[in-house]
Every structure is written in C-alpha cells, then in structure tokens.
C-alpha cells in the first residue's frame, strides 16, 4: 500500500491541477505541496526498502504472473528519489519567478507520475506506458514559454524522442515474443534459454532507444538544440530527471534482463562512451553560452555511465548508479544557476562546475571516483590504462570548459538589476548548491544506497 502512495499522490494531484489555472500563485503552491507530499511518500518507501529489502505489489490482487506488478528495490527508489528531488527544485525555481503557463504545475506532476512509475514498475510493458507518460508531458513542457525557439525545440525533441519510444516499443514486444512474459523477473529468468540472435535484436533496439534518451554520442544530435532552446527550469527537468530513464533502462534492462547481450556489446559501449566523453568535452570548450556549455557537457558526462555499465560487476554498476545520481544533481544546479546573472548564482554555478569536474570538497567527486575505481578493475592492462586515462582526461576537459564558461559568464557580465523574484530564485539555487556540498561532505547515505542497488545484479533472482 505504501508503494502506491507516491504514484497516487502525483497522479491525483496532476489530474486535479490540470483543471486549474497554474499561473495563479495559490495553484502553484498546491503543486509544490503535492510534489513535496509525493517526495515524502517516496522517502518513506525508500526507508522501508533500505531496512527490509524490495517491496512488491500486484495490481488488483491478481495471482502472481497474471497481474501487473509494482516492485520497488534499492535501484528503483534511488533513481525515483533523485528524480523527484530534481523536479522539486526545478519547480520551486519556476514558482519563485512566477509560472507563465496554466498547465505547468499539472505537467510537472504528470512528469513526476511517469518517472516514479518507470522506476518502481516490475512489468516491461508498464515500463513503456509510464515512459510514454513522462515523455509526453515533457514534450509539452519543452514548449513552455511558447516563444519561437521553444516551439522549434519542442518539435525537434518530440519527433526524435518519439522515434526512440517506438523503437523501445519494438524492443519490449520482441522481448515478450521471445520469452512469453512481460514480468521483468520472469523475463530475466527465461532469457538464458532464449536463442542468441533474437535476444541481440531486442537488445539493440532497446539500447538505441535508451541511447536517444540519454543523448550518447551518435544519438546526441537533438540534445544541444533542445537544451539551449528551452527555459532553464525545463532544461533542468529534462537533463536532471528525464535523462535518468536512459541510465535506469541500461541498468534494469541491460544489466538485469539481458546480461549476456550486455557483456557481448561491452566493446561497443566503451567505444561510444569514450567518443561521448571526448566529443562532449571538446565541443563544450568551443561554446560560449552557459546553457550550450552545459548541454554539450551533458553529452560528455553520460559517456562515463556507459563505460561503468560496460565494465559491469557490482563495482561497475554501483559506479554507474552513483554517477547518474550525481550527474542529475550537477546538471540541475548548472542549468538553473546558468540562467541567472548575479554574484550569488555565480557561486552556485562554480560549485556545480567543481562537482562536474570532480574536485574533492564537492559531491561530484564521489561519482567520478567510483567510475575511476571501476575502470581500474576492467579486464586487461591496456584497457585498464586506457579507460583510466580517458576518465582523467575527461575530468581535465570538464574543469577547463566549466571555468572558461564561469569566467566568461560571471566575471565579465554586468551585474543585472536584481528584482525580488530573482533573489528568490537565487536563494533556491543556493540551497541546491548547499545540498550538493553537504552530500559531498557526508556521502554515506548515497554510497550505501548505490551499493545496495548494485547488489541486486549480483544474485540473479529466481
């Protein structure tokens, strides 16, 4: 019952708020309240999972194998918590400055419904349905602001990602046809007896679809145009929360359901990961606008996730989980603070930059360290040295582009005349920055959660 609570809160609140005028401040506050309530409910689920292990629930009390299952394990709740926290911060940021569209609160809540559902569902087709709920709400959110560039960004985003979703559907249905079930645990159990070729086809389709969401190297072409075109709060939601679906899918479907095919494709993943890191890093250096710098940096950062997933094992998957969580927080902080031009937002931007580069006092350091540690256990001396070198070079590049853009944006920019709403937004950004610093200084809860999440790939569930 407590498992359904966050989903129910988001969904009911979204339906209710869809009827109301979101531009009104009290409606906006209601949306904030619903997000906070959902976050609290999710925290309760997380505590329960951390203490007693995975929670499971079958819709409508159907016997096992017939009904649609919801299953929350450490991996799912870790991602759901991060995604909701990102939405909460980005929504608070938008609320502080005044919401411009009547649908914004409802869409944010629909996005929260979809993301929570994706992360706690135990059914492959339900994964697709929740995935579509979050995608469709983000298509509309991309157009938020409704200026010319936002509309163009929304068209690009919707068409490219819709194609990705259709590929994903093809992949899920192929899995159903080869295994005869949609329950994720049963698929994982039946996968070893499936012939290799159909499994590779399904795996490739799913990988391409998830790659489009993540924005890894050959599928990144839509990303810069969208992230630079949209409002900074929407960019934070897309890159901080929505892109997590890609990483989650790689872990849940790749590592959890198709481990044999994932091991087979490890060289490809590593090649794409390295290409993403170098491409994203080099192009970020050449950009001037802070949002463009962060957008290209997003392409580079997901490369580390691919490398960690390709290395695999508890260390590799743990690193991928930890890095994804940190990456979401960094991107949220950078996109939000990059939209504000004053000294205090500059501090937050610098903290985000330090976190992306992985400089010790700030939190991103833990994600980078985990990935570096994973590269050091990779097979073969040459591969080990090469991957470690790429991670270090990538870190150097990110330090370079973050501080180039920091200097250009905050040292030379004239002090913008600050109004009340700008101060409120700056305050929210500073709170988020403080959170990143605090979680860097006391990383124990996150490390414990990601370790626990990685362990689910250790023991294959029967």
């Amino acid at each position, binding site marked *: 019952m407590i498992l359904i609570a966050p989903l129910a809160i988001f969904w009911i609140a979204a339906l209710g708020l869809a009827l109301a005028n979101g531009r009104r401040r009290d409606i906006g506050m209601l949306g904030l309240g619903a997000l906070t309530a959902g976050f609290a409910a999710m925290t309760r689920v997380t505590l329960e999972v951390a203490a007693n292990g995975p929670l499971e629930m079958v819709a409508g009390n159907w016997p096992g194998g017939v009904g649609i299952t919801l299953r929350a394990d450490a991996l799912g709740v870790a991602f759901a918590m991060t995604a909701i926290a990102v939405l909460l911060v980005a929504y608070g940021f938008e609320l502080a400055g005044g919401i411009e569209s009547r649908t914004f609160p409802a869409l944010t809540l629909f996005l929260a419904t979809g993301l929570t559902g994706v992360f706690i569902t135990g059914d492959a*087709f339900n994964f697709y*349905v929740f995935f*579509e709920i979050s995608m*469709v709400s983000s*298509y*509309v959110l991309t*157009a938020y602001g*409704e*200026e*010319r*560039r936002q*509309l*163009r960004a*929304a*068209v690009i985003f*919707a*068409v490219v990602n*819709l*194609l990705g979703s*259709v590929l994903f*559907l*093809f992949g899920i*249905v*192929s899995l*159903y*046809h080869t295994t*005869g079930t*949609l329950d994720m645990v049963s698929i994982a159990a039946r996968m070893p007896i499936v012939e290799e070729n159909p499994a590779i086809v399904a795996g490739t389709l799913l990988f391409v679809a998830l790659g489009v969401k993540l924005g890894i190297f050959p599928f990144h072409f839509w990303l810069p145009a969208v992230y630079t075109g949209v409002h900074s709060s929407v960019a934070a939601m897309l890159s901080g929360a929505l892109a997590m679906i890609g990483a989650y899918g790689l872990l849940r479907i790749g590592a959890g359901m198709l481990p044999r095919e994932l091991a087979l494709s490890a060289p490809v993943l590593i090649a794409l990961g390295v290409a993403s890191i170098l491409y994203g890093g080099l192009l970020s250096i050449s950009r*001037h606008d802070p949002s463009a710098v962060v957008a290209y940096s997003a392409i580079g950062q997901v490369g580390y996730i691919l490398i960690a997933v390709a290395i695999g094992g508890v260390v590799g998957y743990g690193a991928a989980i930890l890095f994804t969580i940190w990456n979401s927080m960094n991107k949220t902080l950078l996109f939000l603070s990059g939209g504000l031009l004053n000294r205090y937002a500059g501090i937050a931007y610098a903290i985000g930059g330090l976190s992306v580069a992985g400089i010790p006092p700030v939190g991103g350091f833990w994600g980078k360290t985990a990935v570096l540690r994973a590269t050091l256990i990779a097979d073969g001396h040459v591969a080990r040295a090469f991957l470690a070198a790429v991670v270090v070079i990538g870190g150097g590049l990110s330090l370079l582009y973050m501080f180039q853009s920091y200097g*250009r944006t905050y040292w*030379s*920019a004239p002090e913008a005349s600050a109004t009340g709403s700008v101060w409120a937004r700056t305050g929210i950004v500073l709170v988020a920055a403080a959170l990143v610093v605090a979680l860097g200084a006391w990383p124990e809860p996150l490390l414990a959660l990601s370790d626990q999440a990685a362990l689910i790939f250790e023991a294959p569930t029967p």
Partner: protein
Amino acid sequence: MTLVMSLAVAVLVGTGSYLLLKHDLVRVVIGMLLISNGANLFIMAAGLSRGAAPIYPLPESGVIADPLVQAMTLTAIVITFGVAALLLSLIYRVYLAHATLDTDSLAEAEEAEELLAELETGTDDAIDDGEILARESHVA
C-alpha cells in the same frame, strides 16, 4: 501469415522513415504516425498464439488467440492517438509563429535569431568588425 505481417510492418516503417526525412513538418508527422502504426501491427504479429477470440466462455477445443498482445496494441493505439494530436497542435503553433512549415526555413530563422542575440550582447570576442558587418547584412 507471418510473412504478410512482416511485409506490412516493413512497408509502414519504410514509408514512414522516408516521410520523416522530408522537409515539410506535416509529412514528418504523417511519417511518425505510419511508423507508430507499424509498431502497433508488430505488436499484434508478436502474439504467441492464433485462434478463436479470447472471450469467456472459452471454446472447449482448439487454441485461442493471445489476449495480451491485443491489450497492448489497444494501449499503444491510444498513446499514438494522443501523441498525434499533440504533434499536430505543436506544428500548428510553429506555423503560427513562423508562417512556414519548411525545416530549411526554420533552420534559417534559428540562425538569424542566434546572430541577432550575439550582436546584441556583444560578449563574443571572437567576432571582428568585418564579420559583424557580414553577419548584419545576412540578418537584414
């Protein structure tokens, strides 16, 4: 039957992909719909069994059709329908804002806007005077 189904899916996805590469946004949306419907047909084709309709009371003998794929297709059709409405309204808004649905003209509009923004802020130290003049004439 499998061959007919796969040919139909191939034709739908193929024509859809072709339209998707066109320069007109309406064709892009139609292409997207064809691909989505190809996927819907693919779901039906992926059923594990074919036979009588899976409605209670089930026939005593013989196989019944796989009901799960039909439920999935129905869900996917609803999603396709919603997304189609959304895409059409989106390109309508683009048309209202730009008075064109040609992707080349949209890209040109984007470049022009970017140049204008760069000229207004003037923070880009890479631009020398000659280039500014050249770009201004381009914008004009």
